[in-house]
């Protein structure tokens, strides 16, 4: 059987991880208790894996994209996914200060910035292509 997934569907696989982190984060009254930190640390690991894995797929999809519009779309969706994770982490990082939360927040922020840079790059590339280079400056694709 040969199946294809869209990048949206790939991201949808990671979304329950974010919801679960939020749910577990809200369960405990005291985020500094050992039980709470153990449970939340597991959520931090799961979300980290989802972000890193989704980013790697985004890079692979962007590499194969046929157009700059498609490239921009992939990075915009990945950036939105990171933004969703950051919104939850921003709310919970003070409640769970010793569970890897701050470290994950910083890492996801760096990944989001990497997505935004590539998204912006694709838009700029499209814009720059409207300025023609003199013929013969760059080799032409056959």
């Amino acid at each position, binding site marked *: 059987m040969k199946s294809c997934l869209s990048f949206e569907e790939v991201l949808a696989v990671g979304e329950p991880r974010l919801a679960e982190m939020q749910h577990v984060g809200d369960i405990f009254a005291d985020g500094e208790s050992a039980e709470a930190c153990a449970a939340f640390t597991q959520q931090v690991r799961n979300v980290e894996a989802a972000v*890193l894995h989704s*980013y*790697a797929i985004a*890079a*692979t999809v*962007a*590499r*194969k994209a*046929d157009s*700059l519009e498609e*490239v921009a779309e992939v990075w915009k969706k990945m950036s939105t996914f990171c933004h969703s994770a950051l919104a939850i982490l921003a709310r919970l990082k003070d409640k769970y200060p010793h569970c890897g939360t701050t470290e994950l927040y910083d*890492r996801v922020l*760096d*990944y989001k910035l*990497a997505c935004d840079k*590539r998204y912006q*790059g694709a838009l*700029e*590339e499209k*814009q*720059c*292509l409207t*300025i023609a*280079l*003199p013929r*013969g*400056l*760059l*080799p*032409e*694709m*056959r």
Partner: protein
Amino acid sequence: MPDDSLAEGVVARDEIAALAELFDRFEFALDPLSREADEAESQFNDQIENLFESRVKPALPEHSPVSLPVFRRHVCHLCREFLRKNRP
């Protein structure tokens, strides 16, 4: 598969092939925060700037709108096409 999809220009096709390798290592890095990606991007930018100053700028007509950032984006685009055709 031979890399024969480019014709020669002021910038040679071998140079584009080498730039495409660097572009691949940072733009599509599976870990964008890796040292390898960072180094590849830095080398790519240095080589683009060097090409622009040494060979492209002197070849441009007076008052050309082609600046270093515009040239860089054109090269990025060519690298994308090169990779799609030669390193699928």
